[in-house]
């Protein structure tokens, strides 16, 4: 049995998305900017894809900008709001400590250019409140950017409340919805979102394509200069096969969302119930305000990479916020921002499941993890010291 439980990293393409994409590569290879019929048929496909994306986000097609992925969309949204703010002398941004690097590194770039950023604490449960956002608002706040759902621990923020606040204060609101899109309902109208990023490969669409939703009236700056594609806001020959593949995947995900959500939530609960029995373990992030398919545990006394490799050996693909998986010395900034000490943050495991997974697979995971954790603990001098009381436990039980 091989269990792919790393859907938050990337997903396998759906058959529908794949078929749509292949059909486009074979039959609609024209450049949508070309006047001849090969080009104009491609242009028609582009229009259709834009309409589909808009429909399921409750947006207008003219508010959809195709990008090469979530990172690019994040960069463009933030740089655009910053440029607009700067023109009015506003150089303050509100965000959180546990955003994706596509957001954080863009914010850091802006800090070097004189912007000030307030990074809201996300607490032990990985949630912020609209009140905390409101308290951080200043006269010169140019942008509030808060992710819809976190990629490592899966917590979902109160986006509609934050949206309402931003609208009231007339501050542009961007949300990185890369983990949320296709998995939980998103309504940019109801949520009062001004800009939103998503990436197709997180919902069984192709890689290398995403959307920046930007509400009418938002002024965008280009991340990529050149031709007049995407109404002059994103240059480069349109990646039509990927775009139509994304639209097909998004439609499929949204149409089946309720059904999938129910199924995936059950798988997630199976995992949580099984894994929380492991002594000295903890589930990261709020128990209920979370994505249907994302689970993140810490096991004291072990290091995440070893756990991953041994799980892989048992046919389970998972991920970790361990330092060793990223090549840096610090464990993931997400885990640290929850207030988890370095010592235990290294021992994290993320399992992210989707509609292609089965209860049998969850059983396999639940049966495999405890033994591996025990094996690694037995090899670990840290565990030895914890047992002997020479070291203090961070976790309960």
């Amino acid at each position: 049995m091989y269990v792919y439980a790393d859907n938050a990293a990337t997903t396998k393409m759906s058959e529908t998305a794949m078929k749509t994409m292949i059909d486009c590569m074979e039959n609609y290879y024209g450049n949508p900017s070309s006047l001849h019929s090969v080009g104009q048929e491609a242009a028609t496909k582009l229009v259709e894809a834009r309409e589909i994306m808009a429909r399921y986000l409750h947006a207008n097609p003219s508010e959809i900008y195709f990008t090469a992925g979530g990172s690019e969309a994040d960069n463009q949204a933030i740089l655009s709001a910053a440029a607009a703010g700067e023109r009015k002398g506003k150089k303050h941004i509100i965000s959180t400590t546990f955003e994706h690097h596509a957001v954080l590194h863009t914010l850091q770039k802006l800090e070097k250019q004189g912007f000030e950023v307030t990074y809201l604490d996300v607490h032990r449960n990985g949630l912020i409140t609209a009140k905390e956002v409101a308290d951080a608002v200043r006269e010169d706040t140019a942008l509030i950017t808060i992710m819809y759902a976190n990629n490592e621990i899966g917590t979902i923020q109160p986006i509609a409340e934050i949206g309402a606040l931003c609208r009231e204060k007339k501050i542009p609101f961007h949300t990185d919805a890369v983990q949320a899109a296709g998995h939980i309902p998103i309504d940019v109208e109801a949520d009062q979102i001004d800009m939103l990023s998503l990436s197709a490969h997180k919902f069984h669409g192709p890689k290398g394509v995403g959307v920046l939703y930007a509400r009418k009236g938002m002024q965008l700056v280009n991340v990529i200069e050149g031709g007049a594609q995407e109404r002059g806001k994103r240059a480069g020959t349109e990646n039509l096969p990927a775009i139509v593949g994304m639209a097909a995947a998004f439609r499929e995900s949204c149409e089946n969302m309720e059904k999938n959500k129910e199924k995936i939530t059950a798988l997630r609960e199976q995992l949580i119930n099984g894994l929380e029995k492991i002594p000295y373990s903890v589930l990261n992030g709020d128990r209920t305000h979370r994505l249907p398919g994302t689970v993140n545990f810490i096991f004291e006394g072990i290091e995440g990479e070893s756990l991953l490799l041994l799980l892989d050996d048992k046919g389970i693909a998972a991920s970790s916020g361990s330092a060793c998986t990223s090549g840096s010395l610090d464990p993931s900034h997400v885990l640290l921002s929850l207030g988890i000490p370095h010592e235990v943050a290294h021992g994290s495991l993320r399992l992210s499941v989707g509609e292609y997974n089965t209860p049998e697979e969850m059983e396999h995971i639940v049966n495999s993890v405890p033994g591996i954790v025990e094996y690694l603990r037995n090899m670990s001098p840290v565990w030895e010291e914890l047992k002997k009381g020479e070291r203090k436990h961070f976790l309960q039980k």
Partner: protein
Amino acid sequence: MLYSEKVMDHFQHPRNVGKMEDADGVGEVGNAKCGDIMKMYIKVDDKDVITDVKFNTFGCGSAIASSSMATEMIKGKPITEAIKLSNQAVVEALDGLPAHKLHCSVLAEEAVKAAVDDYYTKKGVKPKVQE
């Protein structure tokens, strides 16, 4: 692949894992904050030859593999040879490590030296580890 077959072999089937109650020397290096701790135990006979060695490691795949490889490389060797074990030798024996994992081999080298250090200290001999 991230790791060579050798690394994977030593990670999946680590040699000389465990504690040693009656060790002649014990060394512990690294720290939990950084995510790597290695503890090495050596048994030394009266001819200063390492007759047995064990390790416990908290760390990533390459940390475990480096520990395992290091124990194999010093087992049965005279102390004077063991203290010459370099991290490069461990890396080579493992058919290489990714650049950002080289520190694991350094830890292995340091763990051996710390154990030998401890052995000399216990014997009351001036350690010759740092040359």
